[in-house]
């Protein structure tokens, strides 16, 4: 059996080399992408900081907004900084297609199943405990601890204390009006 060896492969290592004039062009492109990434990050931070006061927190709009900006940033990094846009079509698809197939499906199935598990009738005793914890935590954790909540109180007492605090807040609100 005869075997064919290829000792005359192209020099892929030096294929991407360029001269100073071309380098200047590339550098200006890279800095543009950098400013774009920075601008997007600043916008994200401002929106994230203001999300509560603008009433967007936890909303669908905010999720889509952040995820699309993230994908733009990811595209900038992968295509320009990692030079994927300069690679051949074969390599681009080899790298990007696994995500289109596996990760999109994983995200789909996880959103469906994650929401399903969240239905009230499906809650376990563990979930109930988290609910109780959340009642305690609902007011900001930086606020002083209510006097009713001492170490060793039971779940019932916590709920009762919370109810009392809510009623107090409600009656205080009516007095102001």
């Amino acid at each position, binding site marked *: 059996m005869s075997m064919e060896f290829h000792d005359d492969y192209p020099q892929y290592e030096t294929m991407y080399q360029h001269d100073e004039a071309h*380098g200047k062009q590339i550098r200006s492109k890279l800095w543009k992408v950098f400013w774009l990434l920075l601008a997007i990050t600043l916008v994200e*931070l401002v929106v*994230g900081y203001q999300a509560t006061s603008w009433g967007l927190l936890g909303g669908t709009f905010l999720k889509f907004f952040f995820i699309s900006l993230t994908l733009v940033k990811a595209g900038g990094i992968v295509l320009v*900084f990692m030079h994927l846009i300069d690679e051949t079509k074969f390599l681009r698809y080899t790298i990007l297609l696994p995500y289109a197939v596996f990760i999109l499906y994983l995200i789909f199935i996880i959103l469906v199943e994650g929401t399903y598990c*969240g239905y009230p009738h499906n809650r376990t005793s563990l979930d109930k405990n988290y*609910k109780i914890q959340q009642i305690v935590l609902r007011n900001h*954790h930086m606020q002083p*601890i209510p006097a009713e909540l001492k170490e060793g109180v039971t779940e019932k007492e916590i709920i009762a204390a919370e109810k009392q605090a809510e009623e107090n807040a409600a009656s205080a609100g009516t007095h102001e009006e």
Partner: protein
Amino acid sequence: MSHAVEVDEKQAWSGGQSPFRISYGKMMMWFFLVSDALTFSGLLCAYGFIRHKYESVWPVAENVFTHFPFITAHIPLAYVGLMTFILIMSSVTMVLAVEAGHRNDRKGVTIWLFLTIIGGFMFVGSQAWEWYHFIEGTATGAMRQVWDIDQGKYVTKLIHGANMTYNEYGVPQFANFFFFITGFHGFHVFSGVMINCVIFINVLIGTYEKRGHYEMIEKVGLYWHFVDLVWVFVFTFFYLL
């Protein structure tokens, strides 16, 4: 850029050349990054699953990460914004080192790679600081229901900070995923800095000058940009959403 040379599809796979028109080392780095990115995707998807399950009791990151070095003020997201800036900055210095490598500019590679390493160390240090404050918690603390193993039931206790079993700020799963995913990412950053250091020493002693090309910078550059890429997603899903 002009080196996007498409290959004749019929000729590409008939041997004698790389169908991807890429060297072996770079292709293997890409394949490693594909598998590594799938790992991170799996972790982030698991995080999304648990977060959806406990949506009503999930802590808001804005109320957790509010510290900033040398300032006692309450400024949410500022510190993580700075960390993101450091990492994006080190990413751009890395790509400039790669560009200098394409011109066989040893001095340029040395400077930009050095700045990249500094950025990497700054980021790892920032993450350590962030972890410290998350573990330490607030002076006020919060009343939490924690499992008492002796009594065999949940008891209410005053909790400061977070660890793997309890979390001052909300459900313990938040801390579990935070420690695991940012820890895994931080370990990648740390490895990246170490690899960059090795390559930096090689640049200093002129290994790539002798070799005639700086492709090794491109390979470590791919890894470094990948680390930045992962942070972009971690930043969005842990801090913003």
